[in-house]
């Protein structure tokens, strides 16, 4: 059984309502450093004490990324008083086009407490590898797009110690994500 199937089973366990089971600490992820959308050095460890949602995407993405960000806007609204305890990290897999300024401008259109992150290809590849994500540049010489970026769509939920606790698949509902984040924020998670 492939690893991602097991991990997805963990998500199903969550959504089955096992609210009292402690969330497993997943064997992926870890601390990293990138450049944020204010062109400042960013370290994941600076967010200790907050729940963190991590998503890999790019601003020229027409569907998946704006859909996820719109969903997260609704998640933040539903979290209400808990929303200040949750930070979203949007990590670009298209650093060629997604400069800090572009990330900042485009993320501003969503009601998400998000930090856009970029870096060198090597830095981004390292983080992609840490979280078991995937991306690939697809040249489109005949298209006005010039190229497309295929990328994985998992939303990672981290606890206040920077540990990965939940993997939300792209099809996760707003309810699923809210419930999962609340599990992460719970005192005994």
């Amino acid at each position: 059984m492939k690893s991602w199937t097991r991990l997805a089973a963990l998500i199903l366990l969550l959504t089955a309502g096992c609210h009292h089971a402690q969330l497993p600490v997943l064997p992926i992820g870890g601390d990293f450093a990138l450049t944020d959308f204010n062109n400042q050095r960013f370290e994941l460890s600076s967010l200790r004490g907050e729940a963190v949602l991590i998503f890999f995407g790019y601003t020229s993405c027409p569907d998946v990324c704006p859909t996820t960000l719109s969903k997260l806007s609704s998640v933040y609204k539903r979290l209400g008083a808990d929303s200040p305890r949750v930070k979203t990290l949007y990590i670009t897999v298209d650093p060629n086009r997604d400069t800090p300024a572009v990330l900042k401008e485009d993320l501003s259109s969503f009601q998400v407490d998000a930090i856009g992150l970029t870096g060198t290809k090597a830095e981004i590849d390292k983080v992609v590898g840490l979280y078991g994500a995937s991306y690939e540049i697809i040249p489109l010489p005949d298209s006005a797009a010039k190229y497309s970026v295929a990328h994985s769509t998992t939303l990672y939920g981290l606890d206040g110690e920077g540990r990965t606790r939940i993997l939300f698949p792209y099809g996760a509902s707003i309810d699923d994500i809210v419930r999962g984040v609340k599990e992460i924020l719970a005192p005994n998670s």
Partner: protein
Amino acid sequence: MKIRAVQLPSFVFVVAVFAFAGLVAAQEPAVVAHDAWVRMPAPSKMETALYLVLENHSSQPRAVVSASSDAAAKLEIHEMKTVMKDDSMGKSGGPMNQSTGGSDSSMSMDKPTSQPMMAMTPISKIEIPANGKITLAPNGLHIMMFGLKSRPAMGDKINVTLKLDDGSTVPVVAIVK
């Protein structure tokens, strides 16, 4: 045979009725579009995606082969599809962090293999089945609009023309959302 004068107007009337019915049938479009909308472009972008429903009222399958609009420099037909990477861990990432640091460290997970990815891909046409319909929606088929000539506002209407494989066109009015 001589047509009596009193019968001629009736004959003309019947011919006129059939001619009018034929004219109406010929003018009714075989393919129609509805529920068209355009995603508000990101603040730094002058490109976006168009979604709509196409219905084919004819007994022949049809296909959208191109699109154009005065509102944008170039329109392209695209789809979102799932692709797999051959070796994501080798090609796109660094070493795995194996540390769990938690109470449930007994859970042994294999090193994850590559995740499926979503990719935007140009396609040559959108087929509409005979007497059927097709829906262009997020995460599937869509029409990309590149080089918007001005930034739209929420609620604006954008005119688009779709060209079909038989040379006919389909007018579309899309709402910016």
